[in-house]
Each structure stands twice: as structure tokens, then as C-alpha cells.
């Protein structure tokens, strides 16, 4: 338990100290959302209709920007070798590092989304559902990203390959995330079924993704 806390605390501290991770993700998120209205023109109805989808797509891309940091630095400086000799099983190490990524990337991105929604004329009554869907869905984003990060360890320019590997796996999260968030805007449909699906996706990723990631880590360490 103490080892788990120590690792979580260290990873969060590193994300804040080394800058980059969080700042880049938030900045990228802001830029993508800010240039969308410039590309689409000032049609407010159109913007508010596509706002949930745009916010979700930008969030996925922004989260991927920092995904290769989940394991890469520890692999480079040899810390991963020592982490495997600790009292925690490797899947748990992978899970804690993914959790740290969620806390330092997923949560800030989800919380800043309403602010960026203003740029896209997102109706105010859609904000609670949007944030809820993002908080429910981003754990899946971080944990699945860890699979890609562990598979691309040791490769040069791994970020691009990581995006290619992981983005298809985000399709269900995107579909249910947007369905939840836009329920308040477009239709009479209830937002709860897709939200529950999102929660299910996140829970399944939290359990299964660390196992896949640790298998990939074992091969990378050989």
C-alpha cells in the first residue's frame, strides 16, 4: 500500500515538475477547440450541435500527446528495472502509472472542457453532462493509452505509432461520450444508458489494460 502511494505521489509530482505533460495537453486542447470556429465559420447553431463531438475528439488527441510519458522516462533512466523488483506486481505498477496519467491529464482536460465549450457555443445546460461524461470516460482513455505506451517503448518517435495503435480503441469511448454529452442538446434521448456504458468501458479498461500493458513491459525489458 505504501509502495503504491509512493509511486502515485512521485508520478504526479513528476508530471507537475517536468512541466510539459499537463501544460502541453491543455494548450493543445485550447488551440484545437479555438481554431474550430475559425474553420467552420460563425454558424452558431452548427457550432453548438457539433460542440460535444469536437470537445471529445480534441480531448482524445490532447490526452494522447502525453501518453508516451507514462512509461517512457522510467524506461530510459532504468527506473522501470527497479520498479519490477518492488513489492508490487507489474500490472499494479502499470495501473498506478495510468492512474497518475488520468489525474494529471484526464481530470484537468475534463474540467477545462466547459470553458472551451463557450468557444463552441455549447449550451449551458449541456455542461454538467459533458463534464460527467468526460470524467467517466477519461479513465478508459488513460488506461488504454498505457497499453500503447508500453507497446511502443524503446522506439524512436513512438508518439505517432502510439496514436495509430490507440485511437481505434477509443472509438467506443468517443461514441458513448458524445452520445451522453449531446443528449441535452439534440434529442429527447436519455443520457444515462450511454453514460453507464462509458462507466463500464472505464471499469473494464482499469481491470484489463494494466494486464496487457505489463505483458508488453516485460517484453520491452528483455
Amino acid at each position: 500500500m505504501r509502495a503504491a502511494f509512493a509511486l502515485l505521489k512521485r508520478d504526479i509530482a513528476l508530471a507537475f515538475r517536468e512541466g510539459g505533460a499537463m501544460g502541453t495537453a491543455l494548450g493543445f486542447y485550447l488551440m484545437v477547440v479555438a481554431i474550430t470556429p475559425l474553420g467552420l465559420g460563425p454558424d452558431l447553431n452548427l457550432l453548438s450541435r457539433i460542440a460535444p463531438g469536437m470537445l471529445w475528439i480534441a480531448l482524445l488527441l490532447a490526452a494522447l500527446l502525453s501518453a508516451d510519458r507514462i512509461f517512457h522516462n522510467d524506461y530510459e533512466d532504468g527506473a522501470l528495472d527497479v520498479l519490477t523488483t518492488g513489492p508490487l506486481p507489474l500490472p499494479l505498477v502499470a495501473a498506478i502509472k495510468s492512474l497518475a496519467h488520468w489525474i494529471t491529464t484526464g481530470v484537468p482536460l475534463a474540467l477545462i472542457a466547459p470553458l472551451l465549450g463557450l468557444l463552441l457555443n455549447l449550451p449551458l445546460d449541456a455542461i454538467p453532462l459533458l463534464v460527467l461524461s468526460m470524467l467517466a470516460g477519461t479513465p478508459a482513455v488513460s488506461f488504454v493509452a498505457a497499453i500503447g505506451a508500453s507497446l511502443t517503448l524503446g522506439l524512436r518517435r513512438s508518439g505517432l505509432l502510439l496514436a495509430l495503435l490507440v485511437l481505434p480503441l477509443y472509438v467506443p469511448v468517443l461514441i458513448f461520450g458524445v452520445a451522453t454529452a449531446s443528449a441535452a442538446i439534440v434529442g429527447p434521448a436519455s443520457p444515462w444508458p450511454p453514460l453507464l456504458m462509458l462507466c463500464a468501458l472505464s471499469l473494464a479498461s482499469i481491470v484489463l489494460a494494466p494486464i496487457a500493458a505489463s505483458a508488453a513491459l516485460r517484453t520491452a525489458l528483455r
Partner: protein
Amino acid sequence: MPQTIGLAAHGIGCQRGGRLLFEDLSFNLAPGEGLLVTGPNGSGKTSLLRQIAGLLPLAGGTLGVTGAREDAVLPELCHYVGHANAAKSSLTVAENLTFWANFLGSCRDHLPNALAGFGLAALADFPAGLLSAGQKRKLALSRLFAAPRPIWLLDEPQVSLDAPSLKLLDGAIGAHLAQGGIAVVASHTPLKTKFAHKLTLGGKRAR
């Protein structure tokens, strides 16, 4: 805490990228015995240490500990100090060591001990990124004191250390062995510590 843990290898082999580095390697280390592994570059010294630390699979043979608790796993008894220092440059020296002490599961606060081990106490609040190569090496070696573990696996521990630090390293290994610990050291340059066993790899296959 007197140590009672021994390390035994029976006929282990190592294959890297289809090439057989060594095979049929056996040794038996009783508590308090050290093993010095020598051999030319590429003869498998690092691979042997990584196998003991559980990072590389064995190509045949068995590795086992004796005298440990039933549920003990070999990697969790080992300190592995490899070529990379596993130091985070944006954390201070003390933060690096505190993390490893907590993570590797030391039961008490070993931080003062770890900082004193290689004389890093004066640098405690210094970011590890600003340390010199030798100081980073000492930071990695200080991990040995941050959490007590019976088996030390040291891969070229003397690299970039100055003469006084080499003495400290020798003293640390000697003290560890005297307490009944085990040290497996891969090295080109001789250490003053007396090792009970010596192993030369790559003798036959050296090119």
C-alpha cells in the same frame, strides 16, 4: 538483522537475440558470500544479473533462494543497480531516495542512513539533474541503504566513482557480506573486497 538467505543457480543458460551467451552455469552462494563476475564485453555479465533480478528469462536451468520465507520471490529480495541510475532529474536527491525507500518497502525511515552511505547528505536538497556523473552513480548506489535487501546485484558499480567513493563502495559491500548478505558484482576493474566465488564468463566463446 542477520541474514540467512543463500542464492543458488543450477545449469542456467542465457540466450540473447538467438546467440547463446552462456550455458550450464552453476554457483551456490551461502549467506555472506560474494560472487565476482568477470569476462570480456558482451559475455553476458549484465544478462546474468538481469536474470537474477527476474528481468530476463532463463534459457534452461533453475535459480533459487535458500533460507528465505516460503512466499519470498527472488526479485523482491534483490537490489539491482544497473548501468542506468534510475534517478529522476527533477526530484531532489532526498526525494529520489525517499521514493525508493517507500517503494522498495523498507520498514523504517532509512533516509539518513541512505544519504550518509555515500556522503550525499550535503546534496540532499539538490535536484538530481544537476549532479555530476559520479554523484548520480552514488545516488543510485545509495538505494542499497534506502531499503535493506539481502541480495545486491551490482553491474559495474565503480563506473565514474572517485577514489574515496570507491573506498566507501568497498566498505559497503564488505559490511553487507559481513552481515550475511549476498553480493553479485559484475566488474572489469578489481575491487578490494574479498569475494568467496569468482566466475569468468565467455572464456570459451570469447572472440
